[in-house]
Every structure is written in structure tokens, then in C-alpha cells.
């Protein structure tokens, strides 16, 4: 390979844009410890580090506080150590050496297991969180994959002309609703989503609020007795919602 070829691969790799066979080839060279390749990559990575160093920004202090806490928790300082020493000082008088050693082994074992239990706890929590996230994402993906899913765009009406929303709706599976550009509802009020089928009265599909940037979302269960929805609408209602719409309409979209 010529210097130029190496340089080209190293540049793309450092920038993060090297793909396919080129990437495999370059990584093989790296693994093999090819001196020219390593030097070329090191140079470019230093260059990019220089680029980053040229525009530093002060991170929010909360990040460091959280990290220091996380590190302390991960290292699980061993509280059993002084206990071990104290017992070792008192008990050898009474206990045979073998028993003291046995006790020490138990205490050490307990310390180690306490450390790991803490870590396992954290891991289990992380895993539960990920599983829950995965389930909700799988539900969304299942809905999106199904050809029977309709996507309905809702546009803002006079109370919030800039508001927009999307409803991904599947008659059997339910749907996902996302809105943006809505004003924060006044105290004691919330937005309510309605499904309108034919000339029937609107059916409530749930109540939602919006965050500080005006975005809100709602996961909608299948609506019993509602087959083909012709339109979705959002009105402002008392918090908790009403059985039938009473307030001003903010969003409307026909399917």
C-alpha cells in the first residue's frame, strides 16, 4: 500500500466514516500492529483532538457530581474491614488460629459478596429499565410495521396555529400519538385526544400534557367498538378528561 492509500484510510477511519471492506482491511492492519498505519492514525487522531481542544465548553457541574458519586458507589468501599480488624484483636485469645482464619474468610467473603451484590443490584436495575424500554419500543415498531397502520397528520387550529401532531393508528393494536407546539395547559386543564368514527360521538383516546418545549405524547390502547376512525382531534378539557368534548379544539386531522 502506498503512503497515500494508508493516509486516506487513516483519515477516513479517524473521522469515523470508513465502511465495509476498507474498514475491515484497515482494522486488520491495526490489529497486525503495522507501524506506518498506527503512526498515520495517531497523527490524525491527535489532529482531531486538537480540533476539539480548540473549542472547549464548560460542562454543567451536575455531570461531575454524578460521576464522582457513581465511582464511589462502584468501588463499594469495604465497611467490613475495620470490623475484621477489631474481631481479629479480640477473638484470637479465645479462638484457635484455625477458627480465626475461618472467621476472617467468612468476613472477607461477606465483604466481597456485599460488593458484588451492590453491583448486581445496579445491573439488575439497568436491565429492568432496558427491558421496559425495549418492550415499549417493540410495541411501537410492531405498530409501524403493520400495513394496516394509518398515519394521520393533525394540524393546529386557531388557539395554537403552529401546533402539529401525528397519530400512528392501528385499529386492533392501538397507536402512538405525538404532538408539538402546544401551549402549556392552564392549571387544572389537560389536552384530550378524541377518535371520531363516522357520525358517532367522539370517543376519548386519553389525556396528555406537554413538556416545557410544548411536546407531548400518548400511547393509545385499542378503542373498543371503534372500527374505522375518520378523524382525530385534540381539545382542552379539565384535567382527567371528560366523556365528551367540551372545550376548544386545538388540533384536527382527518384520516
Amino acid at each position, binding site marked *: 500500500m502506498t503512503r497515500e492509500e494508508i493516509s*486516506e484510510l487513516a483519515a477516513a477511519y479517524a473521522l469515523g*466514516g470508513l465502511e465495509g471492506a476498507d474498514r475491515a482491511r484497515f482494522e486488520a492492519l491495526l490489529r497486525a500492529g503495522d507501524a506506518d498505519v*498506527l503512526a498515520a492514525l*495517531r497523527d490524525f*487522531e491527535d489532529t482531531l483532538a486538537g480540533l476539539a481542544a480548540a473549542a472547549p465548553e464548560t460542562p454543567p457541574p451536575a455531570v461531575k457530581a454524578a460521576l464522582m458519586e457513581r465511582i464511589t458507589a462502584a468501588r463499594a468501599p469495604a465497611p467490613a474491614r475495620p470490623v475484621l480488624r477489631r474481631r481479629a484483636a479480640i477473638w484470637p485469645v479465645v479462638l484457635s488460629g484455625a477458627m480465626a482464619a475461618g472467621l476472617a474468610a467468612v468476613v472477607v467473603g461477606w465483604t466481597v459478596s456485599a460488593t458484588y451484590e451492590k453491583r448486581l443490584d445496579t445491573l439488575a436495575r439497568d436491565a429492568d429499565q432496558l427491558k421496559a424500554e425495549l418492550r415499549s419500543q417493540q410495541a411501537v415498531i410492531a405498530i409501524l410495521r403493520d400495513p394496516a397502520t394509518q398515519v394521520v397528520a393533525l394540524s393546529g387550529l386557531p388557539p395554537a396555529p403552529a401546533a402539529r*401532531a401525528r397519530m400512528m393508528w392501528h385499529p386492533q393494536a392501538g397507536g402512538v400519538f405525538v404532538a408539538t*407546539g402546544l401551549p402549556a395547559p392552564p392549571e387544572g386543564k389537560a389536552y384530550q385526544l378524541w377518535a371520531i368514527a363516522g357520525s358517532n360521538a367522539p370517543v376519548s383516546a386519553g389525556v396528555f400534557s406537554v413538556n416545557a418545549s410544548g411536546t407531548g405524547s400518548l400511547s393509545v390502547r385499542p378503542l373498543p367498538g371503534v372500527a374505522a376512525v375518520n378523524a382525530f382531534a385534540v381539545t382542552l378539557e379539565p384535567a382527567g378528561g371528560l366523556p365528551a368534548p367540551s372545550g376548544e379544539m386545538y388540533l384536527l386531522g382527518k384520516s
Partner: protein
Amino acid sequence: MPPAVPGSETFPALIARIAAGDRDAFSRFYDLAAPMAFGLIRRVLRDSEAAAEVLQEVFWQVWQEAPQYDPKRGSPEAWLVMRAKTRAIDRLRSMRRRDRTFVAPLDESIARAEDGEAENPAVVAEDRGLVQAALAQLPEAQRRVIELAFFEGLTQSEIATRLGEPLGTVKTRARLGLERLRGALRGERLSAT
């Protein structure tokens, strides 16, 4: 460009102490290096909240992977910056994926991230040292390729499609652009000694 600090506080020395589980060394390394990583992550993500999360992940990775740091493979700065960059781009891609699935037409901050600041030469030309200045002085075509790859996480073929240029041209521009930046960085180092 290690900062002027006593010997036990050079970046390689700090990484070695972190590898041995030294919290103070980690705290010090964070203070010295986090602004550089955060500047880059913010540039990639623009969303401060997401950037703060990514910064935390990156330094958590530093804490865990310090024992694997190999000085032969590069400087600690590069080691850190490459991690920051990879994590930030991963986050950007997942934001875009989520975006394409259902928030896309709605989330304005993403739209800004797509074609906002990168187009603004004033932002790029901000006078923050020679490397940044050199980036601003690159021929537009080379600068664009480097920015699309480094700050927006596009692969070379994606850049080729975006710019409507042959892949070979994109590859050459990335190399020429980085070589020129490398030259600028060396100039800076020479003048500093």
C-alpha cells in the same frame, strides 16, 4: 497539547493513576479534559441535555477503561476525544432514527442540527487557536467533508451522496483536509516550544 502541570499531573500520569482506581486523579483529569470533550459533544449534538448525558457516559468509560489505555496507540487527549466523538455520533444517530420513526416532522431542534450552524462560516471561523483557524481556512470542499464526517457522523458514501460527488473525491478531500490540519497543529506545537 498537555497543559502545563506538574509531572504527576500530565495526562498519561493521570490515566495511569485512574487505572489504579485513584479518584483524585479522575477528578483532576475530568477538570482538565472535560471542557474539550464537552465542546466537541455539544458541537455534534447541540442539545445540552443530551450532551451532558453523553459526557457522563464518556467519562464513565474513562474510569472503566483506563487500565486498557495504551500510550503507544495515541495520546490521552486523542483517546478521550475519539471516545467522546463516537458516543456523541452514536447518540446523534439514535436521535435521528427515533426522529425518522415518528418525531421527525415535529422536532425542530433536530432540523436545526441538520442544516443550521454548520453552514454558518462565522461559527466555524471563530478564532479559537490555530487548528480552528486552519479549519476555517481549508478549501470549502475539504472543510465540508471533515465537518460532515466528524461533527455529523456521516460515512464517506453518505457524504458523497449528500454532496453529489464521487466517493473517490470525498476520500481524497478528507485526506487532504486532515493532512493540512495536521500541518497546522504541528506548526502550533513548534511555535509553542
